[in-house]
């Protein structure tokens, strides 16, 4: 029997979380070491899955595992990855590992970086969240997908409300949780509708998504249910006009949680919207693609403008995520090969980039105790690694060739040309706006003169921080220079989606 890669990946974090809770609270470094060990296991395994999928030229669902869970209702624990989800599993592994490094938080020259307050509970909640995220990406069963989805959303509330930025954490945590729960409930209704209709059509009670794909939903059914299902999930993907929770949530969350949140959780929404919305209801997707593409255009352009006018360092990044996730939704909504391909790469690229951004923002904030951009400056002299990391992330963000952002955005725009050329012309303006705000933020925060108030109070970043920045940078440059280390596998995933779209 094959080694159960996926279930080990999914359940390692939750096992580690239980183990961490059993440790005494004052042994902070022991807790941290366990967390790092579990994250390393997941990183290695997800890398293994990714590399074997890529190098063996696989296609379709691989690493399939199947366990009975509640056969009477047709619910099974079914795992598998395809070309769309394998990069996201790797992404989660990377963000989890770097997130733990960033939150290590050992007392260091009096800088209160990372998590020093109750790290035991922090890592326990964070890892429950991680399990949920992995679970969504690998689930082949609709029920399980929801199960893991809620499991990922709930710890977010606690993580933000307890460890967040004191001024807005309660407001942001509440707002985020309500938005996401309402969205997922709407989607759940749609999922139950699919469940019953497929039972009526085929006489089999099942949540298996591969079977639901074949359930023969009628055009009317798909027209009615596509929007609730897609948008319900897309709330977590930050689609306009339901994006409002996201910048508030990003800003209030502690650094590692922001990394998870923007880096991985938003992909969860986009991915679920694709897997459940577009893949199970392809005829509905064709019907409503025009609406999604318009909403996404607003995301892209409006998000960029709003990011431009922010004066809070973290809000800039928060709104830039809104703008970039709009490109993902836009790529999906083109329903074309290039668009989907670009969206698949963009999910990974944006995940890594934004994790990098939030990591650096956290490093700056922990030392300066302010995120107000006019009060910052000159950080490059003290933390050159962080500055270079942020600049590289910035280039990804503005779609500079040679970085993964270009590899992702260019095909998306090609897809948009095929769908509606006017949208391409309108949304391309976001590239210049993004370049403006990224360059201005880089200049104001990292270059120039350090304000006198901060002079002498800023300490360099730790070795662990550097270890966290390095792989993130290498990944986005690697994909930018050599797209073939990711694109062929995403393409197999896209082929499968196009097959479903063509059949409907």
């Amino acid at each position: 029997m094959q080694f159960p890669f996926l279930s080990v990946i999914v359940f390692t974090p939750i096992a580690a979380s239980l183990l961490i809770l059993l440790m005494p609270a004052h042994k902070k470094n022991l807790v941290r070491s366990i967390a790092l060990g579990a994250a390393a296991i997941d990183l290695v395994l997800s890398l293994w899955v990714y590399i074997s999928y890529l190098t063996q030229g696989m296609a379709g669902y691989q690493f399939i595992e199947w366990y009975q869970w509640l056969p009477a209702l047709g619910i099974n624990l079914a795992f598998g990855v395809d070309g769309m989800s394998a990069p996201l599993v790797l992404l989660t592994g990377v963000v989890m590992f770097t997130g733990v490094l960033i939150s290590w938080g050992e007392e260091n020259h009096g800088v209160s970086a990372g998590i020093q307050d109750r790290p035991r509970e922090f890592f326990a909640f964070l890892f429950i969240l991680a399990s949920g995220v992995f679970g969504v990406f690998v689930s082949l069963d609709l029920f399980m997908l929801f199960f893991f989805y809620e499991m990922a959303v709930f710890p977010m509330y606690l993580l933000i409300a307890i460890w967040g930025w004191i001024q807005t954490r309660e407001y942001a945590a509440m707002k985020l949780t309500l938005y996401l729960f309402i969205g997922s409930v709407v989607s759940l209704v749609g999922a139950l509708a699919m469940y019953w209709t497929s039972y009526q059509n085929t006489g089999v009670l099942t949540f298996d998504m591969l079977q639901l794909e074949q359930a023969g939903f009628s055009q009317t059914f798909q027209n009615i249910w596509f929007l609730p299902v897609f948008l319900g999930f897309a709330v977590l993907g930050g689609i306009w006009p339901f994006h409002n929770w996201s910048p508030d949530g990003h800003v209030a969350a502690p650094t590692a949680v922001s990394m998870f949140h923007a880096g991985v959780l938003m992909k969860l929404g986009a991915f679920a919207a694709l897997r459940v919305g577009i893949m199970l209801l392809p005829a509905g997707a064709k019907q409503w693609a025009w609406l999604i593409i318009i909403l996404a255009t607003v995301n892209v352009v409006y998000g960029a403008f709003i990011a431009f006018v922010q004066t809070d360092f973290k809000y800039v990044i928060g709104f830039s995520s809104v703008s970039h996730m709009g490109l993902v939704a836009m790529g999906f909504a083109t329903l074309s090969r290039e668009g989907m391909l670009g969206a698949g790469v963009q999910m990974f690229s944006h995940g890594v980039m934004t994790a990098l951004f939030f990591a650096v923002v956290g490093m700056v904030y922990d030392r300066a105790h302010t995120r107000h951009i006019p009060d910052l400056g000159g950080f490059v002299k003290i933390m050159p690694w962080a500055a270079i990391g942020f600049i590289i992330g910035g280039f990804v963000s503005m779609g500079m060739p040679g970085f993964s952002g270009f590899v992702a955005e260019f095909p998306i725009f090609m897809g948009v040309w095929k769908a509606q050329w006017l949208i391409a012309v309108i949304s391309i303006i976001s590239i210049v706006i993004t370049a403006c705000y990224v360059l201005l933020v880089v200049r104001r925060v990292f270059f120039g003169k350090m304000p006198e108030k901060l002079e002498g109070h800023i300490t360099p970043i730790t070795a662990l921080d550097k270890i966290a920045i390095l792989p993130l940078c290498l990944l986005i440059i690697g994909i930018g220079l050599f797209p073939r280390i990711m694109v062929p596998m995403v393409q197999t995933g896209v082929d499968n989606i196009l097959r479903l779209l063509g059949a409907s």
Partner: protein
Amino acid sequence: MDFLNTHLLSLILFIPSIAALVTLFLPKENLKLLRWFVLGASLVPLALTLYLWSKFNPDLPGFQFDQSYIWYPAIHSSLHLGVDGLSLTMVLLTTLLTPLAILASFNTTDRVKAYMMLFLFLETGMLGVFMALDLLIFFVFWEIGLVPMYFLINQWGSANKDYASLKFIIYTMGGSLGLLLGIQLLGVLFGTFDLPRLYQAWNSLTEGTLLGMPVSTVKAVAFWGFVIAFAIKVPIWPFHTWLPDAHTEAPTAGSMILAGVLLKLGAYGFLRLVLPLYPDQARIFAGALALLATAAIIFGAFGSYGQSDFKRLVAYSSVNHMGFVVLGIAAAGLAHGTEDAHIALNGAILQMFNHGLSAAGMFFLVGVIYERTHTRNLEDFGGLFPLVPIYGGILLFTSMASLGLPGLNGFVSEFLVVRGAYPLLTPYTALSMLGLLFTGAYILKGIKKVLHGPVNERWAHGEHKLTEINPREIIVMAPLMALILVIGVWPAWILNVINKAVVMLF
């Protein structure tokens, strides 16, 4: 040897980048090692380019030293490289000016490692544009080149560097949006970015509708998208306003490369993409282009004359000189395939090369005197000739090349442009020749203010006493001056390559 011959272009292209990565691991305190290593590394592409020049056969049509690597098969883009006589000339210019710019920055002491790495990356970016035979790769290198230049201006520039660097990058990126959209359109239409194939496919598409509009309308819009992107880079009036700021604030070596090579990227874009892809539109809009070119020549000269800052004076002169390049291109667009057009294009391409030499030289000379006096204000100089006779002689020589004195290179190329364009665009050419008069005026003004007149006593004695140009600086100028003279008296060696390419291409 076989490996060298088959991989020549990619070696020239990537050796600077590889050297930059090696530089990353050199100790940053050892300035001497850093400088000499980077200089040595930048001489390798020059040597390889000379070898390339010797192996290049100008009589063969099409592209030589063709190389293709897989890059992004999902959207049918590959790293396809190749050179013809046109790109070869530009590659030579780039690989020649980069070592000189690096040698010119040997006196930099501020973050030398990062500075030198940026220059090497910049060289790869520029060379990539000249070698690319894939439209997407062209764009990739086009944008990549902006990044090092942005940081060179932003980090090592003078007082107003923040404004100038942001203006530079936003102007160019914003201007490229039309180009980017056009590239996407072509990619979507034909499923390939390969230039030789696009030339055919796009030109055979003449009738019918596209995107719900007549093909000719779409082509006209796309034409202007391309033209604006390149016009900003050249720069053509009225898109030139980023240039004086960027040039003035950039460090000396940065200005050398900016004026010497980066401006040529725009003109090269016209020749490589606009004329072959849009022959009909180029004919229709040739008058408009010629008008803008004439405006650039005349207003550039006036603008230059009005400056009191020596570096700004030289910066505006670039607008003036590059105007002739565009005039030649407009003439070629109007009368595709005629002998006059060929003459004008010969002149335009040679003018690109020549301006690269003389502008780089002028900026360097401005840098030499700025470094000694810490002022660029023309009123602060005066009568420096007796104090620094060698410097004065070199400045005079380079200025005369810029002015277009017969016997030096500027005359050859400007004469060719004017000779080719005159029968085709008579009124514009006539006006431009009047503009040449003002070229003489601003150059003589510069020389007079700096070298002649009553001696400014401040530089004659005491702690501010002006020192003569040093041997390193003379070595920087020597190859430039030699080429200026050689092309002036015997242009055949380079015109032979250019002319054959022009006749085959246009």
